[in-house]
């Protein structure tokens, strides 16, 4: 369909220029909002950063004080004829300015941990990634074949799906205590939580995808003489493989959402440990930096998988695409998931 210049065209694509503007804005708008709140002194800024404590006994330089308290103390000083404190409007410590977080994104990787046995940020991240990887891999090794089986054979579906349907409503973190009791406090129970969070959804989603496979193709193959086994391996699996691949990408995203809970179980570890420690030290820039790293890793993984998928399944491809073009398609939601 031809692009339309109408901003509100129903399900119509916009011209290249307008599309790109919107892509930029989708990231720029939240960032601008954050900048406004951080850098324009009369927007929000509920605190005062003390520049000169005056003669208020407990004020100190660089201290953050609530506006109300600051005004009250200064009133007291004025009435008593003492020197008043000076300060500038500031945001609470839990909302650092964008440039602080940007700095932290670099320095957090360069700063050695405070305690000798604490991990570096990159070590924490790697540990988290390995938990996700093993949880997701174990889930897929069982879930993928089981899902395909359920999608193919009604018998398998009737035997397993009702129970899985029930089990998937049980929140994975609820099994934390049990997992620790069974598997100790280190990585095993964390991987188990990711597994529980992913596996049951995975079987159902993949079974459904396989069931959506066009039955006319199956019939066409039958009339060409395909046996049951050939139907499975030459029609059912290749026919749903692209959709399964996309399901797996979405499921991997879900696996990440279980990460923090999983890492809190037993001995806190990975990026969660890093975030908790930095919070304790009140290094909120680092907390933001760590949270953003999770987003960046998630997005980058999915992007790489999208690009890989485009190369693995040439029949779905509209043409050879570079990683950069994949990224553009990916950001502009006109690609078909």
């Amino acid at each position, binding site marked *: 369909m031809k692009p339309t210049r109408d901003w509100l065209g129903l399900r119509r694509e916009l011209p290249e220029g307008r599309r790109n503007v919107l892509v930029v804005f989708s990231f720029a708008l939240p960032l601008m909002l954050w900048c406004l709140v951080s850098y324009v002194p009369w927007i929000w800024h509920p605190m005062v950063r003390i520049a000169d404590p005056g003669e208020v006994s407990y004020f100190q330089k660089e201290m953050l004080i609530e506006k109300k308290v600051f005004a009250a103390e200064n009133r007291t000083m004025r009435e008593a004829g003492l020197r008043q404190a000076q300060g500038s409007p500031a945001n609470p410590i839990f909302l650092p300015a964008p440039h602080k977080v940007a700095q932290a994104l670099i320095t957090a990787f360069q700063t050695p941990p405070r305690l000798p046995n604490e991990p570096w940020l990159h070590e924490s991240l790697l540990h988290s990634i390995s938990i996700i990887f093993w949880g997701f891999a174990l889930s897929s090794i069982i879930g993928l074949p089981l899902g395909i089986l359920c999608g193919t054979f009604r018998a398998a579906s009737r035997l397993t799906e009702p129970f899985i349907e029930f089990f998937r409503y049980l929140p994975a973190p609820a099994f934390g205590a049990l997992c620790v009791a069974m598997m100790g406090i280190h990585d095993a129970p964390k991987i188990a939580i990711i597994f529980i969070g992913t596996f049951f959804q995975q079987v159902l989603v993949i079974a459904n995808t396989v069931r959506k496979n066009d039955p*006319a193709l199956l019939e066409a193959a039958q*009339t*060409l003489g*395909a046996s049951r086994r050939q139907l499975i391996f*030459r029609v059912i699996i290749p*026919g749903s493989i692209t959709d399964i691949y996309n399901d797996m990408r979405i499921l991997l995203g879900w696996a990440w959402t279980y990460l923090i809970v999983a890492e809190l179980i037993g001995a806190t570890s990975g990026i969660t440990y890093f975030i908790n420690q930095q919070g304790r030290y009140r290094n909120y820039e680092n907390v933001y930096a760590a949270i953003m790293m999770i987003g960046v890793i998630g997005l980058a993984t999915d992007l790489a998988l999208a690009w890989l998928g485009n190369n693995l*399944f040439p*029949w779905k491809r509209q043409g050879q695409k570079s990683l950069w073009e994949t990224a553009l398609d990916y950001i502009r939601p006109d690609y078909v998931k």
Partner: protein
Amino acid sequence: MSASVLELPDYRELAPEVAARFDKISERPVILEVRNLNKVFESAEGPRQALKELSFEVRRREFVTVIGPSGCGKSTLIRMLAGLDEQSSGQILLDGREVSGPGPDRGMVFQGYTLFPWLTVKKNVMFGLEIGGHSEAVAESEALQWIEMVGLGSFANAYPNQLSGGMKQRVAIARALANKPRILIMDEPFGALDAQTRCQMQSHLIQIWRQVDVTILFITHDLEEACYLSDRIMVLGSNPGHLMEFIRNPVPRPRSDEQCLSPVFLSVKKKAGGVDPPGPILEPGATAEDSHDPGGG
């Protein structure tokens, strides 16, 4: 059946050489035989008879078209012939043996596009051959010949989504023929194509049929298509689907586009159209041609 149809002169009287042609066809062996075929669908509102007591036979290298109004059971019939559905009663014999389940001896081409989207044109055509146990090299060289035959040699490595509707159906024909079926059964294969492409595909199909030893059962609801392609036209009526008439098509071969306007062609078309009931009721004096033309001309 309207009076105007009955008044038409019998083509047999018109052309003795036509009768000779059909006598020759009737000496050939029977490939497909259908005996007292019934199909009843069990639905929520109770049983529904889709086909009733259908019997016919198709002889070797014959081109038979099946025509009838929508819902008269054409697809139901071919699904049973293909072995994809089971008949309620009756027999389907291929070369004298009862068919059970789908098999490569009956090549199918459906109205919807059923190429495997993940396989190239070549691999699609190779599918049946590889399944049938041919080595990859043999399958490939045979597939390429069939692709050449349907005129898509330069598209052997294209994927189906890069082809037009007509090209997809040509690949589907090549894929079905590659298995060397006893009979090629086609369910409105050109129904989704535009008029021009459809014309091209029809003459293309005739060409293929002349080159290859294959019997064709072709379903359509386009009268002109039926007349242009067939040796015989099987006219089905609906509610429930039943055989109304088997018309021998006297139009000589090879057929050209101009022949579609010849009196013989028109009389066949009228005959087939006239026994096709769900048109408007014919006024006395009006011809079947004027008032009922499901093919759209």
